[in-house]
């Protein structure tokens, strides 16, 4: 869900580096680039995101970027998850400690 939300926040053309940075910024923890790609690959396999290859650039040692974007199915899944979380939080006593 964190990866999906990061993709939404970044908008069109998001790729590995900004997604990793966004998760690190929002969570305050270090994130492995390889783990982000593993999550992205799982999401793509489920049809929640799509990807396309960009052009190779010199700053990346001549390697291309892989851009990701959320599909309609991904948005539906996110809305469902949001609803579930809101319902789960409802009626809980205030967290202490």
């Amino acid at each position, binding site marked *: 869900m964190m990866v999906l939300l990061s993709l939404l926040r970044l908008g069109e053309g998001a790729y590995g580096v900004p997604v990793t940075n966004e998760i690190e910024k929002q969570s305050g923890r270090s994130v492995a680039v390889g783990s982000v790609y593993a999550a992205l*690959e799982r999401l793509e396999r489920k049809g929640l995101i799509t990807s396309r290859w960009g052009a190779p650039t010199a700053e990346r040692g001549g390697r291309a970027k892989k851009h990701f974007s959320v599909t309609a199915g991904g948005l539906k899944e996110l809305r469902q998850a949001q609803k579930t979380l809101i319902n789960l939080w409802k009626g809980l006593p205030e967290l202490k400690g």
Partner: protein
Amino acid sequence: MNKNTSGEPPRIATWFLAAFGCSPDNDAIAGDLTECYRAGRSRGWYWWQTLVAIVVGLSQEARRNKLLAARCIGVGSVLAIVFSELLQRVLIPHSIITSLRFVSPMFSMLLIVACAASIHLGKAMASLHSNYRRAFAVLYVISFCSTLYICWITTLLTAAPARTTSHVILGGFINYLWVLRALSGSNLFTTRMAR
């Protein structure tokens, strides 16, 4: 840690990722790591990310093809045990084996021969799994080397030939432990390195 804002990322780490990285997005990962390194990340960060990417890619492929992974580990372990047995029973007398020390040239030579043999066998194994060539060759070589190493260490530590069933069971057990550990879910937050 040394910061490097313009130079090339560590060559050996880049080679490791190109040679052992099993993720379908290996090229994109390598590009991202290079971009981050040139943006000021440290050499330690680059190395750590490379190793994590290799492990995550490997476990991802193994999880996707559990049966093939189990077969590779099984074959690797069995071949290592057979190789170790052959070495200790036929090729080298037990008295010489037990007199070896970890730092002796003989022990080092045996390790090099074993690693070279395992890489060649790994290539043969990989040709059987052409769709997942790299992942299963790496998995096989790791399981071969680790089982062989465990067999020999046990022999040297206990000063007894590694022909007892307990050695074999121990070797196999430790081998499967690390595989289980590797396959037990991937976590986004796997690095604690300085940025």
